[in-house]
């Protein structure tokens, strides 16, 4: 066991740092999805041109094909430099693209992958439905096959960037009467297709980031099915094999910076002399440190055995709840200034309000605990 990096890795770190230092946009990324679109596209284009787009994509698909430790280094430096979130390109780069790489036909790959890498095509997700929530098996959006087309009816919800997206990774029920995980298909849906209505949803922090999407006899070509009709569950799950545990890196660095910022604030404002505040800040600092250790362990596990251990669920849960503790400390130090928040502000209050999603989206904290109990500890199923 060691926590050191080789001279080559350290040199790579220098390269990352140098490039980031000179290329990070001067202006802040806008909060609202539509205002941010141009910003996101321009930044993605820059990353692409410098060879930093798709760092974990294979080189034959235009990616950088970095080793996992190099990915760690890039992501650490990226976060440390406070480089902007890739925003509208997130789904394409981290989810849609990888799914295509694993499952799509050569034609599908050739058409879509370059657009994603260059920031030319924005993707959004289409998994969750009103009433289905964390339960993917409960999908009710239907696709009826008519000739060489699929006719789609239904709705999706919590779709980030839906109103600016070009394509959607859409999971729907193509086999009438099928149950649970069977009869689902994973399709590429053109968001400009007639019959799609996007209803943006405002968050309680004020910005519009996700939307409800309605499908009224939307027709897409059968060719847009990825991985075969009725095979949607397997395709959706296959993306997980692409997840190598690096996803936590950026969060960890960001949380670490936030805690350091809070400690600096508490010192500057004399609040640190309150033993309760000092204690809680010290605790947060220890916990953030432990997340790095957990993440490194997880990544080492991937390197050694080819896949992350079940401990990834633990990192996910702990990071989510730790983030909320950090955000609460943030507003605690603000005192009454908390009250001056208004929709559209981008500050600690915004982070706090937005942070509730961390234990809701992508499987609630309750479901994460079920998973840890059942899959990792082997306790009998509850449901």
């Amino acid at each position, binding site marked *: 066991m060691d926590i050191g990096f080789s001279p080559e890795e350290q040199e790579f770190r220098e390269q990352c740092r140098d490039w980031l230092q000179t290329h990070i946009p001067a202006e802040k990324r806008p909060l609202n999805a539509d205002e941010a679109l141009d910003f996101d596209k321009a930044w993605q284009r820059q990353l692409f041109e410098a060879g930093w787009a798709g760092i974990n994509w294979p080189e034959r698909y235009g990616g950088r094909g970095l080793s996992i430790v190099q990915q760690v280094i890039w992501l650490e430096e990226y976060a440390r430099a406070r480089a902007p979130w890739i925003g509208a390109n997130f789904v394409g780069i981290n989810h849609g693209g990888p799914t295509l790489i694993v499952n799509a036909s050569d034609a599908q790959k050739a058409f879509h992958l370059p657009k994603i890498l260059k920031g030319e095509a924005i993707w959004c997700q289409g998994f969750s439905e009103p009433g289905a*929530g964390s339960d993917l098996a409960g999908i009710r959006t239907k696709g009826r096959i008519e000739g060489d087309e699929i006719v789609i009816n239904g709705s999706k919800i919590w779709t980030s960037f839906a109103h600016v997206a070009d394509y959607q990774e859409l999971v729907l029920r193509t086999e009438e009467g099928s149950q649970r995980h069977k009869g689902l298909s994973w399709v590429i849906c053109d968001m400009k297709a007639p019959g799609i209505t996007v209803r943006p949803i405002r968050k309680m922090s004020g910005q519009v980031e996700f939307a409800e999407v309605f499908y009224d006899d939307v027709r897409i070509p059968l060719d847009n099915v990825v991985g075969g009709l009725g095979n949607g569950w397997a395709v959706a799950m296959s993306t997980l094999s692409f997840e190598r545990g690096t996803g936590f890196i950026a969060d960890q660095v960001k949380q670490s910076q936030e805690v350091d910022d809070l400690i600096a604030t508490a010192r500057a404002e004399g609040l640190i002399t309150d033993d309760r505040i000092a204690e809680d800040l010290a605790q947060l600092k220890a916990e953030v440190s432990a997340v790095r250790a957990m993440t490194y362990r997880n990544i080492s596990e991937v390197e050694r055995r080819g896949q992350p251990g079940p401990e990834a669920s633990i990192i996910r849960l702990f990071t989510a709840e730790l983030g909320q503790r950090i955000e609460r400390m943030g507003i605690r130090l603000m005192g009454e200034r908390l*009250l001056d*928040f*208004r929709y559209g502000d981008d500050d600690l*209050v915004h982070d706090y309000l937005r942070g509730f999603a961390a234990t809701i989206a992508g499987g609630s904290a309750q479901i994460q605990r079920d998973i840890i109990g059942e899959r990792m500890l082997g306790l009998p199923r509850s449901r």
Partner: protein
Amino acid sequence: MDLTPNDEQEALRTATVDWLADNMPLDQARTRPASIWQGMEDMGWFGLTTGAMGLDHATEALLFAELGRFLAPVSAISTAVAARWSDTEGKVALALGERILDSGDTETALGLFDGKAGLVSYQAAAAEPSLDLSTAQTILDAAPEPALLGESEAALHFRLLTAAYAVGCAEAAGAMATEYAKMREQFGKPIGSFQAIKHMCADMAVRSQVCRSQLYYAACALDGEDPDVDFHIGAAKRLADQAALENGRANIQIHGGIGMTDEALAHLPLKRAHLLQFVAPTATAELL
């Protein structure tokens, strides 16, 4: 000794809830009709403990908890205290340091200053939004110089009513979450049948019960001139603030994705709870 509302109190409470349900539903919390203030005045809530009506603080706390549950304007608190302990008439906004909460339609505010109740005059200015979407605020350029009220009971009265508001706020969040847990299904069952959700709801009920009980005791302590009245009101406010914040958060968590949205109502009690925590908070030393 009797810590349950009597029949008269229950009747007043029922009338209060009925009016609030009709006129102050939660989904209008951020845009209430201008006539609402007159309606509240007509209901008599601002003068319950004045000589004219002569009700006790226990009854008043009971009704103000209901106002709190519907996220009624916070200036109902300052107006009621001003009506009881000063000559001021009409609406009185709530002063919180240099912030004047619910500052419209008046140029007078009441708040606590170093633990004493005092009146503040301020220039009417365009009110700005606050975190609590049902409370607009005016921020003064400098800390105001209040005219302190003579009676020390005014501060206790003010603190009691803020506690009552927080109790109602905590209960609003708890009730909303429990209703949602009964109705919303996942994995083919109402989510309230899952122990994790059920226990969150149970804990919300515990917190509500704890702070409401202490509120009753505190109100009676004020009515009965109990020597420990300061402690009891302080304890009530602290427990109610905690309940309002924790229930407010749990409510959003139980609502899941929909709880994160502006259009759902789940965020409203939490934001109100954050506002109330700054109004007459209880310092540690006051309880020791």
